[in-house]
Structures are given as C-alpha cells and as structure tokens.
C-alpha cells in the first residue's frame, strides 16, 4: 500500500530519518537495562519487548533481517509514549523515541496508516478542521470527525469504545486566535517574541495562551502569534504519519520570521519537544525555528520574573499546589525553572509530591491507541498526589493537564490540574490592579 500523502519532495526540505540512519545509534545500546527503571510502559507491563532495550534489539534485528514486521513487534513498538525518559538515563543516550518513530513510519509505509494515524494526520494538518472540530464541541468525539472531508477517502474514526470512560475538558467556543491579535506591539527596547501555541492551547485551553500573551505584554515584549502555525507534529510522529510531520515542520518553520523574532516561546512541553528538538534532528534539518525555541518557564526565570514574584506580598489565602514534570521538559533538564516560579508565587503554597517526575501516561496518540495502559500509567500519579494534600496540580503542558485531570477524576480526588501560566497570570494581574 502506498503512503497516504504523495507529493514531490522539495530540495533542502527537512525530512524524517529512515531506520537505517540510526544504525550507529542502535549499535550504541550496551543492553545494560537501565531504561527498565525509567520507562513508563515497561513499569506497567514488565515485558522486555516494551522497554527501550527490547525495542532497540528489535530495531537491530529489523535492519539485519532477523525479524519482520510481525504482530508482536508492532505491539512492542506501539507500547512507547515517546517520552524520552529512557534517553535521559541511558549511558550512551541512544535515541529510542526517534528509533521507535522511524519503525512506526516503516510500518506505515508497509501497511498504510492506522485509523488513528489517518485521523491525526488529516486533523492536525488542517487548521480549518481543528477549528471545526473544537467548535463542534468535543475534540475526541466521533461525531465531529464527520466534519472530515469524505473526499480523502479515509474512514475516520477514533476507537471510542476503548475510551468511553475518558473524561475530557469542556471545550471553549472561541479559540486562541479569536482571543488574541496576531501581533501586539510592545516596548521599543524589547525584542519581538514569537509564541508557538500548539493545538491544545489554541483549541482546548486558549486561556493559557491568553495568559502567556498578557504576561509577555506586561513584561514589555512585542508578541507575534502567527495564524499560519499548525500542529507541531508530535501526534503525527507518534502515529507513524511521517509525511504529515514533514509538511507540518515545513509549514511551521515558514510561519515565523515575519517580525524577525529572535525567540520562539512554547508553553506546551510536547510542542517544545517537537519544534525545539525533533525538527533539529531531521535529515537536512532546517534549524532556523528550533534554534530559537525556549520553554516559557526558562524564559520567564531568565527575565527576572521569579524575583518580581518574590517581591510580592503573599496572599492570605493560598491553596496548596504541587507540580507534575512533563516528560518533554524533564528530559531536557527543565525541572528547576517551573519550580522556581511556583515557589515564588504569592498566591500559591508550593509542595513537592512523591512521583512528580512520573509520566502522566498521555504520550501523543498513545492514550488513544492504548487507553487502558495510558490510564494505568496515569493512575500511578495518584498516591503521591493524594499524600501531598495539594488542591491543585500545576504543570507546564496542556496535554498533561488533560490526562492528569482524567486520572484525578477517576480517582475521585478534589484536585484541579492547571497550567503554571494560569497561576502566574492570577498573581501578576492582581498585583497590577492594586
């Protein structure tokens, strides 16, 4: 079967690597087994085929012809959240998520996209579609997917029977682009900052995006929120939709630059991993975008916001708040900046929770393809959260928020999952009106 998308490759365009491009990386795995301690999928199944070492062994066998794309191999390769925890702790930094994504693309090339992959590449490739879907009411609802053009020939359907129990946020009627201008002029001596919002902030949590823009304006920056930005490509990467990733990367690289932005901020850890990291690892990588990407927490800490918060008078009523480390920040070493902000907030009583760095279980499209496993991984967060006594769990990734809130709802806890930016906006705006 042919790949779904078919278009001529433009020269110099960033393209996905092939599995054989990882030959040297695969050889670097010394089979020590360290990844077992850090892989959320393995911690659940305790099957060697599900851990990074097993997947790398399968990749090696695929390359030397020792195994074919059989059912079990596809299951093993499916059991990966692309969180990167294994790479972080690997003595030789073997890039297992990239290897897994490459195998998923081989599976796609061989058999065509899975239904999930088809949905993802169609939906995330089209802003109009995303808009239509969210307007319809529920992002994951099978009803809204009827909006997908029939002309594509795809029978688009999320496997809802596996996800009946999923609790989802109520979707807003107006998305981020309808709430903030494309360009806001700031102080003359401050540079223009680009904001890459990503799908979840744009369509599910636009309030987070609004908070980001407000805070940047308050600090004096000019802000560019390009309307032409599309999905970062992580869900497509996760489901083996290689062509979609390449198209999205090309689109997003072009979407910025109009105002000569020297900084591109993300407030979604997955997007940070996508536009900040994955684009830079592609074949013929165009790094103009990746090189400028910075996580909001690092940016704000660097620009004096922690001190600004510390100088504020603590609120008399401060809810106890804990923090969840999104994998795509933790694995880039970003653990201190979000905590520094939370500790400094006058409206928050920060406590650490046990298991703060455990994966939430979302993992791109993993939670759609493996909802039960995803829920079980998410449930591991609950004991630590309960013991912390926190009323809110703050994080720095809207994907994690969706998943954390689902886990919390199933556990029957009275805890709200929020984005740090929401707490930050609350503090800064209150201070500004005083």
């Amino acid at each position, binding site marked *: 079967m042919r790949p779904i998308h078919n278009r001529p490759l433009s020269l110099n365009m960033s393209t996905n690597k092939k599995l054989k491009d990882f030959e040297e990386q695969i050889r670097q795995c010394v089979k020590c*087994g*360290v990844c077992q*301690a850090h892989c959320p999928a393995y911690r659940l199944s305790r099957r060697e*085929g599900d851990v990074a070492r097993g997947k790398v062994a399968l990749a090696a*066998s695929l390359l030397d012809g020792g*195994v074919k794309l059989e059912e079990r*191999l596809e299951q093993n390769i499916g059991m990966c959240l692309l969180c990167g925890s294994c790479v972080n702790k690997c003595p030789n930094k073997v890039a297992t998520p990239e290897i897994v994504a490459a195998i998923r693309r081989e599976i796609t090339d061989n058999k065509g996209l899975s239904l999930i992959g088809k949905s993802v590449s169609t939906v995330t490739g089209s802003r109009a579609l995303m808009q239509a879907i969210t307007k319809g009411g529920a992002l994951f609802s099978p009803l809204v997917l009827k909006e997908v053009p029939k002309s594509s020939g795809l029978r688009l359907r999320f496997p809802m029977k596996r996800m009946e129990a999923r609790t989802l946020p109520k979707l807003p009627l107006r998305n981020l682009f309808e709430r903030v201008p494309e360009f806001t002029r700031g102080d003359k001596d401050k540079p223009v900052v680009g904001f890459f919002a990503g799908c979840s902030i744009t369509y599910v949590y636009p309030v987070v995006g609004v908070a980001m823009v407000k805070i940047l304006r308050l600090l004096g920056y000019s802000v560019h929120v390009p309307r032409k930005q599309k999905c970062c490509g992580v869900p497509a990467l996760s489901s083996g939709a290689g062509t979609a990733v390449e198209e999205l990367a090309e689109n997003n690289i072009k979407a910025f630059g109009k105002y000569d932005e020297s900084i591109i901020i993300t407030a979604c850890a997955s997007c940070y991993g996508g536009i900040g990291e994955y684009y830079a690892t592609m074949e013929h990588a165009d790094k103009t975008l990746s090189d400028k990407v910075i996580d909001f927490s690092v940016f704000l800490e660097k620009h004096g916001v922690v001190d600004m918060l510390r100088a504020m008078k603590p609120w008399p009523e401060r809810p106890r708040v804990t923090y969840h480390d999104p994998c795509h920040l933790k694995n880039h070493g970003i653990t201190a900046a979000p905590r520094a902000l939370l500790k400094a907030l006058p409206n928050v009583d920060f406590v650490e929770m046990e298991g703060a760095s455990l994966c939430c279980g979302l993992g791109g499209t993993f939670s759609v393809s493996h909802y039960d496993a995803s829920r079980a991984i998410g449930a591991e967060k609950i004991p630590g959260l309960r013991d912390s006594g926190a009323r809110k769990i703050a994080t720095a990734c809207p994907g994690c928020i969706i998943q954390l809130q689902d886990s919390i709802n199933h556990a029957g806890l009275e805890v709200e999952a929020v984005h740090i930016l929401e707490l930050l906006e609350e503090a800064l705006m209150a201070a500004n009106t005083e």
Partner: protein
Amino acid sequence: MIDRQTVSRLEEIVGAANVSVAQSDRITHSYDATKEQFLPDVVVYAENTEQVRNIARLADSQKIPILPRGAGSGFTGGTLPVHGGIVLVLTRMNAIREIDSDNLIAVVEPGVITADLQREVEKQGLFYPPDPASKEFSTLGGNVAECAGGPRCVKYGVTKDFVLGLEVVTASGELIHTGGQTLKNVVGYDLTKLFVGSEGTLGIVTEITLKLVPKPEAKKTMLVQFETIEGAAGAVSEIIRSRIVPTTLEFLDATTIDCIRDISPIPLPPACRALLIIEVDGDPLLLEKQAQQILSVVQPMGVVDVRIAETPEESEEIWQVRRNVSPSLRKINPDKFNEDIVVPRSKVPDMIRALEKIAARYQVPIVNFGHAGDGNIHVNVMVDLRQEGMAATVEEVMAKIFTTAVGLKGSLSGEHGIGTSKARFLGMELNAATIGYLRGIKKAFDPHNILNPGKIFFEADTQPASVIEYEHEQET
C-alpha cells in the same frame, strides 16, 4: 526445537497470553548485559509458584532447558539461553509479601526490584543494604542468583549475608524450603547459602526471606584526592586499622580520573592520581567524630584535596563523580570488557600496578575503579574489536588479569558471577577436585541438566571459537 504440543501444555499452565514463540519475543529475551545473544525456543511469563512447578515438571520430562530470568541485567551471561529452551520470566512475580518490623525480615517474590524493596522498608525505618549499581532495575531473584554486592557491602555484607530462607522449585518440580525466618537455624545442611550465587543452575527461587537492619539515622560523604594509588590504598588500610568501618570506600584510579576530569562537577587537578569516596553512616553525633578521625589518619598519605559534604546536594555532587565514570569510558574505545576481580584489601595497590603493566605490555587501555574497602576492583579493558587480532589480545589480557588476581589470593569474581563469560577461567581458581564436587552437586540437584545449562562449567560449544579452557596452575 520445542514441539507444538509442549507449547500447548505451557499455554495450559500459564495461559496463552503468557507464552510466546513469536520471533520478536525470542529476540527480546535472547540477551543480557553481556550483549551476547542466543535465541530461546519459547518465552514464558509465570505469575505464581504453582505455575513454575508445572513448567519445571514439563521441562524435566522433556529435557528442555529452563532459563529463569529477571531484569536480564547480569554481566556474565547468567540468563542467556545458550542451549535454547524456555526463558522463564519472573518479573511479574513481584509482590512484597511481608515486611515484619518486629522480627526485622521481609518476604518477597523474586521479581521485586531491589530499590523498590529498599524504598518500602525505609518507609518503616528499616534498611536492606545490598546495593548493586543496577538496584533500580535488577530483581531480588537475580540478586540472589548472582549473590549481588555493591558499595555498601564493606560495612554490611553482600546478598548472601541477608538471605535467611528460600522457597525453591527444583528441577523435577518439587517445592523445597531452606532456612526460615530466624537468624539462628542449624537444621540440616545450609542449602540457603548453596542456592545464593548458584546462578539458576540448581533451582528456581520463588520466594525469598530477607534480613533487614534498622535504617541508619544519617550519613556523611567525603571525597579525598591522593597523589598516588599507594596513598589511597594506604588510607584504606589506615581507616580500617583505626577501627572505623565505613559504609562505602570507593576508589577511582588514575586512568579513570583522566576519563572524567573534563566533566567532573568537582575539580580534579592533574596531581590527583587516585581518589577515594568514603561514606560513613549511623548516629549523626558519632559521624562528625568519625569523619574527623578518618581525615586525620589519611592526611599523611599524600592527600591533594579533601571535601566533606555538608548537605545532601553536596553529597550528591560527590557521587556524581563516581556516576560519571561508566558513561565516560566509551570515549576511550567502543568495546568494554568489564570484570570484577577481588583481591585481599591490602593487595589492591599490587593489583593496580600489575594492571598498569598488563595495559602497557599489550597496549590496551585498562580503567580501574570499584570497591577498595573489600578489594573488589572493576577492571575495564577498553578496546576496539574491529581492530584485527584484538579479540585474541583481549583473551590473553583477561587470562593475565585473572592469573594475577588469583596469584594474590584473590578471586575471578566478587559479585558478577561466572556464567558463560568466565567459565573457561574457572580452573584457574578451583582445582579439579573442587570443580568435580561442584559438578556432583549440580548432578544431584538437576540430573537432566535442564536448569540454566551451560553456565559456570566450561562448555566448548557455547563459547566463541577462539577460547580455550584454562588449567589450574598449581595442579598437583
């Protein structure tokens, strides 16, 4: 090759979902940390003792090898299915059955991860000391099979010192119990000690009773840099002679220090040619005194620099120096031969000097670090096997290293075991009569040789073509 009927029987025992002959599963259960690969015929995940018994009965009647497997993180080929057969995965038998704070014991299934047990007992103010570097992923079943050690063993001892009793499934599927829940027990032969370190060749451990100790109140970490390895070794002797037994006494030799100098969080000047990481634990008031005492006895030994951690973060920084070692070794060469010889504590400098000579003579880098407190040296021969003749050179280097260690009244392995990777050297340390006794024991426990066959005892057909069996040198 296993026939379809046997696979069906296995499916009846553990359920079809827990049996696989898929090529992918055979591949992902074919290796361990030696990087060697041997395909099993079938992979079976067991969930309880009864299943293990039925699998053993079946395997024994059909003479099919059984390879008990935990995390597969061993360094000597202990879980490699060198004769095919059934890989029996025990990672899902991972219940902590009991933590008894009155009697200071824990009862666990073999698939419990070492560090998971440690975290659980520490919540109750208790302590399980053995701490192999793999503790975050290795299983207690694997620790028992290999008699794992770790840095803290200087003070507390190794795995065998903490195993009070075992439930074991024999080759014929019988269930036997060794030891018990008491510290004192002299009824019959001490089978517990026999099973610990038997590398899965005598039985399949399905339950382990472990001794616990009270958790030390506090600990103190120090890093001392020395001008020479003799200075560091002398310091170790002086510390022990002054009646202090530290929790850990880790050393790094000059070759190791050269590897990590650029990335070390703590400055390591060129004058530093050996270093010790010393940790003491216990009563916080006593610790302060002990730390001062240690400093005063090591001071005359050519000390370059001393650092005492005042906070947990500073202690972490010191341990980071040690943790930097393994990932840095690959800078030297791509292929690592990692051995864990042990010599009497006082012979550590002699061994290091001998290793330097071997490295110079054969022109191969040898990087040494490890547990100075108990003479357990991690010897890493770093080579590039793509170079012609290198495999043969490594073989010679290994033989030289082992001969030297045994000559110093040491041993081939302190904590990794023999498995397949050191089987050919067994005769260097044990004479023929001793090996004959070991073989006799194996035969008594496992007449059909189905339990992890091909391990400990040399077999030419499962070794690389070039290797030879080494004879005991002082054979009479």
